[in-house]
């Protein structure tokens, strides 16, 4: 019975991030699609709102549109403390800090629960949260 338990716990860790995409297309690539979507690791397609892409484009500008990968990954890592998350992608971090109106000095961007809630409200389909076991 105990082995089953251990297997179940390991499975839980395995499936917790199955909503991540196979490939993260650029903002420009998605904007050129008739119906913007991405394919996730569990095999499903995830539709992306065009309004959110336009909002990101407004903040990113023409130059960063090729560099910005969608969805923006928000990493929840217990190493940063409870309720804290990190955006590792430099391009995304700069744009997100502009959207949230917080200071950004290069490198990774650490955000907290109120920021996550705000970000998810504004960019529901263009952001995704991953959980790191730590």
């Amino acid at each position: 019975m105990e082995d089953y338990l251990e297997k179940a716990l390991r499975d839980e860790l395995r499936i917790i991030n199955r909503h991540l995409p196979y490939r993260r297309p650029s903002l420009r690539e998605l904007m050129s699609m008739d119906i913007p979507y991405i394919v996730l690791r569990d095999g499903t397609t995830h539709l992306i709102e065009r309004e959110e892409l336009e909002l990101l484009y407004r903040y990113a500008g023409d130059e960063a549109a090729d560099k910005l990968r969608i969805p923006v990954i928000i990493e929840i890592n217990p190493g940063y403390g409870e309720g804290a998350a990190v955006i590792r992608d430099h391009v995304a971090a700069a744009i997100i800090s502009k959207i949230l109106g917080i200071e950004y000095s290069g490198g990774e961007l650490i955000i907290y629960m109120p920021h996550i809630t705000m970000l998810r409200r504004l960019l529901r389909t263009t952001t995704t949260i991953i959980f790191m076991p730590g």
Partner: protein
Amino acid sequence: MSSLLRVRPTKIELIRLRKRLQLARKVHRILRERLTILVNEFLVKIREAYALRREVSENLVNVYSRAFLLYSVYGENITRYYSSATREKLRAIVGLENIMGVKTTTVRLEKPEYVEETLIRDLGVFREEAINIIRNIIELGKTEKAIDSLGKEILRTKRKVNALEYTLIPQIWNTIRYLRMKFEEREREEKARLKRVKALLERRRGR
């Protein structure tokens, strides 16, 4: 349920249990974080649905009263023509949206590129209002579906978090404590036995 796991009292088992405890704590921490975020999303959706429902209820009264007025002034044919044109020109895209592993149906309404001009101003306003109300109803349906899916996932995750917090982790912890006590007791017994053997040997040598 027993507060102890049925295991053999061996050192290997103790090491295995320690590893299992570490894993269980890790999973518990992640699931708790996930639960917090799911609840946040759920609350956002609830607020959205509440605002949308209010808007739909208010607008429905206006649209219906305008429709009745137009019907009585311009007759059945014209009213029906414009209301049917409203439906035909709209395009709805149905797909899936994945909110942290929770799949919900999403519908996007695409605005028609060309909308036939109406000669009668009231009919144009009616058509605009009708398009808006269809859009709001679709948004409301989408939000309520998301609430339903998120609610189910929250329940599932909460059950897992509680099972880990109140059953599994205490059980493993208690078993580890029990095994430690057992080993300490064994060690004490061993020491006492050794002392006794030593005393016996010394006594024999003394003879």
